[in-house]
């Protein structure tokens, strides 16, 4: 649904901006893993596409609020960073398929890089409510780009931090730290959100341990609702065939081992409808 929300609070945390937006209707429907799209630029803007942002936090205040956490990348997020309390904000959501959560109280490692960590906190709350054990691995390029360390420490059994420049926690990437966390916590499942490279590495680790991994992918999106076909990536279906599927509606959460990370940004020759070969598989 589309809602003209109102900015309630803005804050800056290290390299991140956070906006809490009163968005009744969206807030109560949001499940962990959902995202929203935000119109940027105001009236007469030259920016045509909405920006996709994960929902970090949902609260029932004022009829329902969502918190969005983001870094400034280009003009759209720059505009968002300039919003002030009481400004209107046009949201569509909740969008995408949320995280599947285990029925049993299993041990889960939640792996987040950069702003990708944001989407893991509502998930952690849900898992904890079901009696799961939750451990965090959070990383970023530098200390100011690791999101949510404090909150992770509060809710999780253990929190492992990594930075590529070594300015906080272990030097390296989240996937480097992951094996020992999985081993130590005897994890049953991994959830990960971050850049595509990170997801590939995390998936490789989880597969080595032979435990399921859910990844949240991020592809450039023009619509977020499944109608523009711009956000596709090659994913292997139940039937073993590869299809170019839309991250916005068929994802953004996928089972890691089904995503053909090496082939993202290409049309694999054996994908359904690929030039030449793939078409034959079609039904």
């Amino acid at each position: 649904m589309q809602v003209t929300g109102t900015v309630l609070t803005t804050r800056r945390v290290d390299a991140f901006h956070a906006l809490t937006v009163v968005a009744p209707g969206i807030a109560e429907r949001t499940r962990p893993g959902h995202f929203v799209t935000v119109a940027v630029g105001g009236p007469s803007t030259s920016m045509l596409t909405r920006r996709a942002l994960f929902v970090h936090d949902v609260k029932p205040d004022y009829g329902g609020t969502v918190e969005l956490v983001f870094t400034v990348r280009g003009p759209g997020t720059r505009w968002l960073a300039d919003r002030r309390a009481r400004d209107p904000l046009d949201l569509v959501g909740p969008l995408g398929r949320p995280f599947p959560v285990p029925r049993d109280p299993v041990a889960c490692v939640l792996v987040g890089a950069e702003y990708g960590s944001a989407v893991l906190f509502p998930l952690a709350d849900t898992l904890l409510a079901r009696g799961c054990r939750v451990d965090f691995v959070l990383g970023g390029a530098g200390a100011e780009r690791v999101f949510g360390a404090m909150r992770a420490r509060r809710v999780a059994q253990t929190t492992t931090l990594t930075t590529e420049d070594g300015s906080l926690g272990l030097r390296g990437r989240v996937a480097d730290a992951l094996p020992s966390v999985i081993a130590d916590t005897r994890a049953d499942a991994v959830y990960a959100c971050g850049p595509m490279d990170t997801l590939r590495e995390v998936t490789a680790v989880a597969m080595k341990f032979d435990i399921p991994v859910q990844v949240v992918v991020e592809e450039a999106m023009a619509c977020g609702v499944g109608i523009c076909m711009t956000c596709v990536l090659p994913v292997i279906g139940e039937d073993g065939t590869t299809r170019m599927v839309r991250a916005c509606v068929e994802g953004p959460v996928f089972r890691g081992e089904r995503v053909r990370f090496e082939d993202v940004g290409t049309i694999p020759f054996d994908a359904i409808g690929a030039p030449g070969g793939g078409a034959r598989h079609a039904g």
Partner: protein
Amino acid sequence: MPVDMRTFLAHVELATPVLTAAGCAGSGRELAQFFDLHRLGALVTPSVTMAPRAGRPTPRMTETPSGLLNAVGLQGPGIDAFLERDLTWLAQRGIRTIVSIGGGTVAEYSALARRLTDAPGVTAVEVNLACPNLEDRGRVFAREGGAAAEVVASVRSILRGDVPVIAKLSPDVADIVAVARACVDAGADALCMINNPLGMSIDTLTLRPALAAVTGGLSGPAILPLAVRCVWQVHEALPGVPLIGVGGVLSGSDALQLILAGACAVGVGTALFHDPYACLRIERELEDLLQARGFQRLADAVGLAHRPPGSSPRIPLEENTP
């Protein structure tokens, strides 16, 4: 008094002139989560091809000033799955559907037309001529009257007479009227314009084309002036031919521009990506604008900007005039 918004595409009556643009409304199911598709003049499908197509690699889109570049490459399920799954879904619900078809050869368009002849629920067939002609070094059919006409003639000859054939033209030509005329002479019952002009963007950080496909189609408000001009020129030359105006429509006022230029229906594409309710909003705004200007029927506004100067009163500008 509400404005009579009915319009005709050849003999087919549409309850409202606001349609989706081909390839911008998914299979219909996605938008149906937001509003009742019966409220559209018609849903235009993505261009369907014979075989399933995986489309182009990503990145497939990038934003430009008031525009969007896309290179999706007609990703789709192919005609068989389309008929079975998508068209059936639409037909069962009685949603007015214009099926867009795309091909690499005249033979492929003909084959698609044959598959559609007996399919239920086809209100009209739109022929997307902006497809590379595999038999002519990949040049698009729409670039030249002869190639376009050949496709239109073959589709027209195959489809039942009561299914209008709409030829969809591209603006990347020196003379849109010549291509339009060739299509009408070849039997097109209506014309749709414009498809995306070819554009390109370079990522100044990676120093490479922003799209994997290098070039892509430009859409959105940036191209509205091109669409208005094409509709104007073609209506001027071929006033009797029903035109669907497409290109950059974000608001009722944009739609009204195309209608005054000569379009009897308006397609909404990129605006749907920003606002899934765009078609309904635009229809409402259009009706309000027509009403505020004293129109009782949409049909009276079609092509009205062509009348000789001095033949109508000037409506004064006022703060908050819609």
